[in-house]
């Protein structure tokens, strides 16, 4: 059990670490177009050339076939090998938004390219875009979750602690929000907002809207816990000694709610990442050329792209992996909550 938790935590930290340091792990600038390399399939890593086996992988430079039956497909030029090297110098980026750097974990020398997940319509490296897009999508999920849980626990604690008409009013509003078809509501809200917004503002609008709509369910759960703990003997005793409402909720009630919030967080993050992906998929999220998993996937709305360029499903795979990790975490939290 403990080993499982450790593995899970390591994997999640690893995932977020890679996304956080996307500039370092990505070999290319996510917005850089290579117009002569559009829809290039993932670059093959070779270990064996005509003569012998190499320990260090290498790649060949690819180019489009211009004529004949294979027109439009890519072919490797076998004349020269390009070794994959570590800590190479490339496009400049800002690490963690502050430190300017040009060092990338891996790369190959030009004219060869290393596209681990292939390229999109403009010849942009899909792997780099998945990493940078993940920054936006996962951050959106986390920020929205924080907003939701904060709003949810404030409302839940107030409603559960005070009861009476406050409770009834808050839970009435709560029910209204629960009954909203939230996806359509989000689409509607986004359509009302101004169209041309900077990436940062779009991002905060998106997370704000997603986060504020989702508070109803956690608020309801928190209220239940508060309601049951409010009449416990130690709370009553504290009140008898003259403790204030604020002290009681901070010292005695919040700790009760904490486990629940953790489980909720682990459940909500992947859901909100999916919400961002859904909105961006419909063109309501961040705009080109900034990547997010949703706007990357939106090209797959075209039938020909969907059936011809399978590697463009990479953001969907990333989304699945992230969701599975978070869901397993939620499962663990949940079982611990039950056993305690």
């Amino acid at each position, binding site marked *: 059990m403990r080993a499982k938790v450790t593995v899970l935590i390591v994997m999640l930290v690893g995932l977020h670490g890679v996304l956080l340091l996307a500039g370092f792990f990505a070999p290319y600038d996510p*917005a850089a*177009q290579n*117009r002569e390399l*559009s829809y290039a399939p993932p670059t093959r890593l070779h270990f064996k050339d005509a003569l012998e086996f190499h320990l260090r992988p290498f790649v060949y430079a690819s180019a489009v076939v211009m004529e004949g039956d294979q027109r*439009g497909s890519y072919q490797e030029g076998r004349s020269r090998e390009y070794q994959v090297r570590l800590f190479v110098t490339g496009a400049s980026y800002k690490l963690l938004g502050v430190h300017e750097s040009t060092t990338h974990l891996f790369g190959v020398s030009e004219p060869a390219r290393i596209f681990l997940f292939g390229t999109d*319509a*403009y010849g942009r490296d899909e792997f780099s875009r998945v990493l940078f897009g993940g920054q936006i999508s996962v951050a959106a999920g986390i920020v929205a979750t924080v907003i939701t849980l904060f709003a949810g626990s404030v409302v839940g604690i107030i409603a559960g602690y005070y009861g009476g008409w406050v409770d009834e009013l808050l839970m009435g509003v709560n029910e209204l929000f629960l009954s909203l078809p939230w996806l359509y509501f989000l689409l509607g809200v986004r359509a009302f907002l101004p*169209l*041309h917004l900077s990436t940062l503002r779009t991002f905060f609008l998106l997370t704000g809207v997603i986060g504020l709509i989702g508070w109803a369910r956690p608020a309801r759960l928190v209220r239940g816990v508060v309601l049951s703990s409010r009449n416990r003997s130690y709370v009553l005793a504290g009140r008898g000694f003259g403790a204030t409402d604020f002290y009681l909720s901070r010292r005695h009630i919040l700790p009760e709610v904490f486990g629940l919030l953790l489980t909720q967080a682990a459940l909500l993050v992947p859901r909100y990442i999916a919400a961002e992906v859904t909105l961006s998929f419909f*063109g309501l999220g961040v*705009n*080109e*050329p900034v990547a997010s998993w949703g706007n990357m996937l939106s*090209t797959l*709305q*075209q*039938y*020909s*792209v969907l*059936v*011809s360029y399978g590697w463009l499903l990479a953001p969907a795979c990333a989304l699945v992996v992230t969701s599975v990790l978070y869901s397993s975490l939620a499962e663990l939290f949940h079982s611990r909550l039950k056993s305690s």
Partner: protein
Amino acid sequence: MKLIRLALHVCLFSGLCFAAAPAPEAAKPGEELARLADVSGRYGGHLTIGQRSEPKTLNPVTATDAVSREVIGRLMGDLIEINRASQLTEPALAKSWNISADGRTFTLQLRKGVRFSDGYPFDADDVIFSFNVYMDAAVDSPQRDLLIIDGKPIAVTKLDQYTVRFVLPRPYAAAERLFDGLAILPKHLLEKPYHEGHFAQAWPLNVSAAEIAGLGPFRLKQYVPGQRVVLERNPYYWKVDRENQRLPYLDELVFLFVGTEDAQVMRFEAGETDIVSRLSSENYNLLAHEQSRTGSQLADMGPGLEYNFLLFNLNDLGGKKLDEVAVKQAWFRDLKFRQAINVAVDRQSIVRLVYGSRGAALWGNVGPGNKLWVNQALPHPSQSVETARQLLKSAGYSWNATGQLHDSTGRPVEFSIITSSSNSQRMKMATLLQDDLSRLGMQVHVVPLEFRAMIDRVFQSFDYDAAIMGLGGGDADPNPEMNVWTFNGTSHLWHMGETQPTTGWERELDQLMQQQMVTLDYAKRKQFYDRAQQLIADNLPFIFLGTPNILAGANSRVGNFHPAVLDPYTLWNADELYVRGPLMENAGVR
């Protein structure tokens, strides 16, 4: 007896009871048929075509959408037709015509013995009736504008039962091309609704087959809401093939309401439809990959007549509260600014990435697909960021330390390009332009909008900086372009609602367009239009980007499949299409 009636009812309501398609009528003595000397085929079978949506109406006078017109065009006949293959006019219901020396009077001889698809004879009264309807302001037909020249209607008179005279208020170049697309209406069916004042409501999609008749190769058989329109052979059609067999060959033509182009391609791949009228290059390549297995016929007809362009908002914003846009207009009005953008655009990439190399780059409004009218002398400058930077510099722009472009007042150059979110090709162009212009230090935002929202901004509210749009594609002749290039035209997009031309070159352009319209000699008209193209390319009200090739596909069963670069691309010769190989059952029974 009761049982039989019950069975009949079940049969009728389950849609299984279909009468066989009518056999073509034998030629009557004195019937003047049009013989297509190089057409042969065989009778029978049906073909299915996928459509984007349901037609809105079957009324040829009020229909405006392409889907409706695609169906109506098969039901109706015109006096003179434009042959889509040769792009020249040829006799249709008028077997011949002559033009007076001053180019104002057209005398048309009608075919004798022709009958509507319900068997009722056709003569000059139907022609007079039809043109009265088209020119009636109360009916408000979209074709009315074509027939009102200088505010005066064309005068139509009947000389005898088979001769009609049209007198134009002034000479009008290529006036005979106007007749293509003006369907001749059956007076005996439509006179009543017209006089009762509800003509616009006549012939809705659910009209009963007995109440609609035309002079086209097919007639209405059945409409199934949400699914399909079935047309059957018009047994009285007035064209015959090489062996004097009456056309059309097909028993039935079925229009299936399928949805987007992607959905049409999927249906086509599944064998549910036989023809796809327009294909994007991506879908074309997809079908080409499977061609060896499916044997389908794919046609790349080369560049079409459509032109896609970047448009700047040069509208007069007086009275509108659009200060943000007004500030940016100072850049857009600067010719050097537009020239810089014109040379910064990487058109070769547009052709390659947007059209999959099945398209052509454009530097003017007439592309290489329009062989009769393109100005070959227009320069095709290749992309040069260096030239663009010099142009901007000479116009007083400068760059800051991070490479961002500033105008002479120190304002950073930043604007947005709106485009229709449903058009993936224009979305791609916008993204490529964004990258091209970032090399000049311009910060460009791409804003995808729902099509109607975008049209509203361009035509009504003027609340936009720049837009990527497309125009053209109707006829090869310059006259349909009048509404774009004359100052008071309805599609004078860069400066809508002008009361008079604002600049010298716009005044000259206006004059040239008016002159070419009243000049009858082709060589002289070409001179005027060449100069007009030159002016447009020099002054860049639009930055022209590219034009897609006309791509279409049909499966191996379709005979005489000859798509054209003019609309309707594949069905213009629906009367000549036939089915190869084994014939299947009627379309209704599936």
